């Protein structure tokens, strides 16, 4: 059996004051290999918790995650991560960052160099191979993070707001790059974001999650990612259905936020 399947995932933990938090409740989902999923939701909806469970950094209290037929028990090179920022190793050059995974596996230098050269070219950093990562701009650093993740050839790529710390212009360019990499490599990608537009552009499937307890609220199947592979993303945004879907999701999330506010006020 191939693909990623998430079965009745729940996560509940105790607080020091005797209360408890239900971060996730009965989340189920299955992904085919090569699918692109974006996850959206107001803060506190458990989307980062979900990603951490998928990565193997957290253990769920109930349910399980199955990838290509085996249970996910902890972090592993089969599931690559791309973080928002600060996850590069600043004591290594760009090349050393990119070939970190193969190096840890003990791959020969020739082979590693080939992988790094190829990936750095793909992300457009062929002229920065020997630079220190702290000399690069934020956008370039995220390109390194993407290349580093791909160098390990993972089955699934998990992205935790990978473009959240970038300025608007760089972000647009990087969205194009993420789509291109997804299409070229055929990896399964799960991307968490705060931005509704980004979720629409970078998701064949889009999950909207709701808070308290964290759960799947609604799922969309979207055409925009497929369109964006071949077209300018700005045209995709102007294209058929984009504005309507965006407005629908925005009002949905606004509704959730208001509900939270109302509930908080009521308890006070």
């Amino acid at each position: 059996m191939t693909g990623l399947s998430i079965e009745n995932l729940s996560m509940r933990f105790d607080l020091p004051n005797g209360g408890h938090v239900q971060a996730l409740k009965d989340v189920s989902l299955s992904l085919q290999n090569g699918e692109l999923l974006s996850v959206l939701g107001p803060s506190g909806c458990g989307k980062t918790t979900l990603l951490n469970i998928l990565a193997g950094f957290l253990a769920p209290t109930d349910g399980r995650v199955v990838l290509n037929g085996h249970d996910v028990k902890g972090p592993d090179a089969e599931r690559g991560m791309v973080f928002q920022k600060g996850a590069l190793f600043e004591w290594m050059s760009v090349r050393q960052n990119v070939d970190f995974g193969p190096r840890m596996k003990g791959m020969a230098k020739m082979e590693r160099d080939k992988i790094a050269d190829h990936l750095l070219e793909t992300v457009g950093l062929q002229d920065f191979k020997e630079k220190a990562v702290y000399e690069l701009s934020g956008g370039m650093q995220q390109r390194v993070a993407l290349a580093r993740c791909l160098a390990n050839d993972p089955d699934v790529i998990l992205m935790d707001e990978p473009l959240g710390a970038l300025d608007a212009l760089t972000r647009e360019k990087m969205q194009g790059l993420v789509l291109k990499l997804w299409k070229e490599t055929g990896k399964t990608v799960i991307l968490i974001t705060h931005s509704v537009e980004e979720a629409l552009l970078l998701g064949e499937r889009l999950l909207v999650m709701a808070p308290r307890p964290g759960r799947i609220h609604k799922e969309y199947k979207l055409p925009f990612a497929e369109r964006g592979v071949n077209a300018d993303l700005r045209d995709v945004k102007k294209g058929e259905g984009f504005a309507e879907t965006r407005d629908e999701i925005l009002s949905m999330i606004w509704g959730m936020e208001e509900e939270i506010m109302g509930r908080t006020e009521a308890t006070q």
Partner: protein
Amino acid sequence: MTGYLILFVYIALFIGAYTLVQVVRRSRAATQDFTSLKTVTFGDESAIRSDRAASVISILVIFLIWGAFTGSKLVPLHVPGPFAGDTSFSYEAVNAAGETDQATVSVIVHQVGEDVEAPEAAPGDGFAKDDAATVATWRQVLIRANRNDEGRTEEGFKITAIDGQPIAPGEKVSVEDGDVSMTAKGSLNFTPHKGLQMEPIWMPSPEAVAYRFVEIANEGYQNFTLWEHLGWSLIRVVVGFAAGAALGIPLGYAMGLSGWFRGWFDPIVEFMRPVPPLALIPLVIIWFGIWETGKIVLLFLAALWIMTIAARAGVSGVNISKVHAAYSLGASRWQILRHVIIPNSLPEIFTGARVAMGVCWGTVVAAELVAAQKGAGMMIIAASKFQLTDIVIMGIVLIGVIGYGIDTLMRMAEKALVPWKGRF
């Protein structure tokens, strides 16, 4: 008195130099870089640039004042020095018959250390005879002016005036080149003017210190060469620091990586850290003796806690994203320690090492003050017992230079080894 004068001169030079530099600068075309165009500088730390001219003048002023108040030949201006040369004063005596007569006391004031023979004074006429004496600068001399006078043993003989100013036992009058006071028994005590300069046994001139440096560099001091003294201090610091780091850094890592280690050692580290190493000297002497073992144990303890805390902070400071990323890239625990945690902690370790080296250098000097046969601290404490102030000052300057040198080396090493510090 001299102290207040020095303070006053120093403040005056501070203000004077500032005014002068401002005037000179205003008359020249100002460079126009970005910072110079900032109008808000008071409170904007980034707009405060260390004034190079002020630094240069500051150092010059220290040597100027030092030289001016110690009679240095390197400095053109001096405050008045002590009187030296030939001087004299006269005294008036009354004998038993009520007659008065005058006589002269000649005094040769010579430099300390010179041996000067007092000239035989021609007695002169009358019953009061002339006298002669010698005295070194900054000293005083007891002159029994009446010792050769006729009728000095008779009732009623006494000295009544100095240079025409009346004097009685216990009183003091000023003469041209000094002060004369009369003891209870009627002898005269002459103190030549001391001026405002400091005596070499309190504060030697810069060239005296430099001369002493050359002498000790060539001949050594107290059975060891200067380089042996300084070298031994440095070796103790390096060995003690290395031992402290060799145990402290792994201990700090263990405390950052394991809850049991942290719980076990936290009370010990947190208790020992605020204990100044100097407070441990007596115990270390009792346990390990006063020789090398004791000193190295002391420096080991001085460095140990600082390095432990630095390594622990280095581990705590690692961004969890980096560790997560490394696990997701397939790294093992050992690889994460080797490739992520250790490099990530290097900036903290270097900061700790700089602090620890500073503390160790201070501690070794203090330990050598207590007991040592060789070392920078031993040199100055031995010299101070003979009031060889020039060696004391030379030692202090060398200790400062070496301490500064150590810190500079550490900073250079830091720049070369952790270039990413503060930039990511």
